[in-house]
């Protein structure tokens, strides 16, 4: 009995230590990316901007259709729910306040983050995992090409540019979606809607949303890369770590979102 408790304790301890090690790995990766961006040129091993640009295309431009579709749907949904719940007080007009604030501060970054985690975080984990198994990462190392500089840094740069950009775009589409529904349901004119929005949404709110999305971009990249490097055991291992990468990055996004919101509303 006592031995079994001991076993359990040991297993918990090992899992905790492994989890902490992953945190450490993430910090090291981030530091190495910053290092290579800063001094890569001096060591004649620059971070390739063309590689980062290619990633931008994949992470950002190709994600526009799905992001637009989701944002439009969620915008309309927010307007429907807002009007329905405010009708209780006979305050349907106030729906613009709720929609405007929640989209820019919350729904824009969150929905974009989750979509990018599912789309890009998974492909990053799968790509690096496959490269590890086929010894491509080893090949880079023995060629004297640092894998962090060559693979991770361009991906991180692309995510730090594209996730906020996508967030900005998706927020606009969401507001347009709810604007359309509000104009149809409440008969509010577009001009009145936009005027009301500009009164409500402060520059700080936009910054709050974009700041969060920048953080999400970094998180998704690091989680994807770490899970990719931890792949072992062939194709099954790649699948397992890809799933794990998506689950962890979505959890990380939501927890970070809450913490960020708490801290940002204190000051």
């Amino acid at each position: 009995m006592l031995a079994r408790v001991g076993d359990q304790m040991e297993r918990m301890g090992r899992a905790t230590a492994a989890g902490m090690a992953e945190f450490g790995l993430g910090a090291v990766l981030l530091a190495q990316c910053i290092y290579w961006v800063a001094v890569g040129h001096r060591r004649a091993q620059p971070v390739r901007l063309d590689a980062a640009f290619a990633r931008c295309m994949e992470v950002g431009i190709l994600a526009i259709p799905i992001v637009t579709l989701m944002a439009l749907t969620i915008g309309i949904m927010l307007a429907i729910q807002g009007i329905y719940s405010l009708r209780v007080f006979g305050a349907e007009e106030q729906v613009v306040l709720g929609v405007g604030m929640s989209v820019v501060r919350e729904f824009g970054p969150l929905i974009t983050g989750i979509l990018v985690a599912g789309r890009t975080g998974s492909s990053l984990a799968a790509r690096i995992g496959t490269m590890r198994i086929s010894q491509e990462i080893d090949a880079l190392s023995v060629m004297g090409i640092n894998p962090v500089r060559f693979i991770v840094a361009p991906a991180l740069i692309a995510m730090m540019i594209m996730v906020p950009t996508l967030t900005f775009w998706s927020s606009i589409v969401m507001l347009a979606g709810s604007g359309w529904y509000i104009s149809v349901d409440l008969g509010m004119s577009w001009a009145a809607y936009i005027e009301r929005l500009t009164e409500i949404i402060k520059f700080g709110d936009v910054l709050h949303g974009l700041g969060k999305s920048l953080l999400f971009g970094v998180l998704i990249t690091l989680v994807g890369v770490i899970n990719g490097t931890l792949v072992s055991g062939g194709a099954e291992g790649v699948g397992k770590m890809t799933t794990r990468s998506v689950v962890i990055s979505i959890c990380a996004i939501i927890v970070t979102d809450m913490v960020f919101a708490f801290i940002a509303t204190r000051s």
Partner: protein
Amino acid sequence: MSTIAISEHRSNAPADPELMAAPPMIEVRDLITHYGTREILHGINLSVRQGEIMVIMGGSGSGKSTLLNALLGLLRPTSGTIRLLGQDLNAISDVERTKLRQKMGVAFQGGALFSSLNVLENIMLPLREHTKLDRNTMRIMARMKMQVVSLSGFENLMPAELSGGMIKRAALARAIVMDPRILFCDEPSAGLDPVVSSAIDELILNLRDAMGMSIVVVTHELESAFKIADRICVLDKGHILTVGTVEEVRNSANERIQNLLNRRTEAEVLDPDEYLRRLTGMQQ
């Protein structure tokens, strides 16, 4: 390359006083490595001379891949030193190691070609990252190496479109594109049909003769080992059984070497009690 020339070289190489006197390109001393707590290599000593083809041979689990990974700097040894071109691989700075790695080429077992780049871009990659040549010069140099490995005309294919033999050739071309002093080949003929496999062996011999590089080949294929080796290092369970010329290894009196050469499995001696314990899964 004719077979006569090869056999001539083979009989000459070890006795050549000039070669014997040259400083070793690779020098391994008392190398011990661990995976976790398990000791894999138990004190390896080995040296490879200029222009020599050293074949590291052994069965599965003999530690030959571990030794290769240590030589490549992918696995940090627990103790012992590895000197490549006179530099201690694990004691030099990152910058020096990057420079050293430009003087060595590696052809991995599965090729390890980058799947997002075509054959030409794969072969050009080391040039792109380490030299300041313009693109056309790089392209010409990469095409020259493709000619060497008889892969001309396949520049624009993606790695997924290549056959097994072509992948090995492309990997070799990428490994030699910087004209390295040392070339490592991991199982160059594994998984290939006899004709293609023998062509790869010829290619390795030609590379040594044309460029004078030292070549370390890790393989478990006896035929190809005997064909290309100047010296063979036989590994077994993390120990070196012998290092010697093809003749010396062939004529070795060591039972384990003879078992390996004759593809005999080792008869396991097991007493009935031990057998019963294993079946029931009981310890002691």
